């Protein structure tokens, strides 16, 4: 198992420690309750973050709330 995986986060290529989606959120210093996550265009619901493992080449979207109408 590699120590790092190369993935795309919000359009930017990045090398991050191998692990779960929950690990990624923590690694990035995000508050878990303030983000939602897609991997390869599939929503990873909150309850599935721990058991979803990131793989080389995954495309991750991390979103949050902003002001809007």
């Amino acid at each position, binding site marked *: 198992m590699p120590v790092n995986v190369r993935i795309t*986060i*919000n*359009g*930017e290529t990045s090398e991050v420690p191998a692990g779960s989606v929950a690990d990624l959120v923590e690694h*990035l*210093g*995000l*508050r878990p309750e*303030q*983000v*939602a996550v*897609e991997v390869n*265009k599939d*929503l990873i*619901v*909150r309850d599935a973050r721990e058991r979803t493992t990131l793989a080389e080449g995954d495309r991750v*979207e*991390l*979103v*949050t*709330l*902003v*002001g*809007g*109408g």
Partner: protein
Amino acid sequence: MTALLKDEPLVLGDVRLSSRLLVGTGKYASFEETEQALEISGTELVTVAIRRVNLDASAGPSLLDHVDRERYHILPNTAGCYDVESAVRTAKLARDLLGTKLVKLEVLGDPKTLLPDPIGTLEASKQLVDDGFDVLVYCSDDPRMAVRLEELGVTSVMPAGSPIGSGQGVLNPNAIRIILELVRVPVILDAGVGTASDVALAMELGAAGVLLNSGIAGAREPLRMAAAMRDACTAGRNAYLAGRIPRRLYANASSPEEGLIEEAGPGPTERG
């Protein structure tokens, strides 16, 4: 006395609102101003957008820290989506983020007009309704489109008064009136509100509510405009419920025409 003037709540899915003003959170100078404007507006349902996390500033304050979820329901939108797939994906992300079934669906046609794409709007509405969302749909003021959306099972149709952020008010009140006759779901006037009289007009026509953002956030004094919009919404709603007098071509005296003193009143030439 005003306690006697009862009104029904505005029901949108599982949410019951006593304020009929829905207010957006975009374009304010600060989160503090957002928070104050929301409070003054009296709104109970606030719209938000879903965007990528800024990874360079991830530890900074969040809008969520300034919107008290005990006090406000949150309505996430799909603003910025120009196709069905991205609108549906955004709605699903929002549901997971907020734990709400409510979504304000926008499927836009082009960035210059920000008018809704009707075909995409219908298709995305269908997918989201089938997936269990309570869909509040931004749409044009086309009455037949509103009927089609209602048939799909949306929770509210939200015709634009005029283009988003244009401040042109309600350009076609007759179209809104026809929509109000044709559909039973709540009709919320969404977009184009420039000032308080636009809100009052929409409510007088019988709209169930008004959704606005730029009209407050872009005013010279947003907090004062928030108060004006709040009052206009209440005024228009009460005028609608009270039932206005018909428009007449000629006058109709409100003082008695009998009992006037000698030589008062119209002479022979003034009598119609």
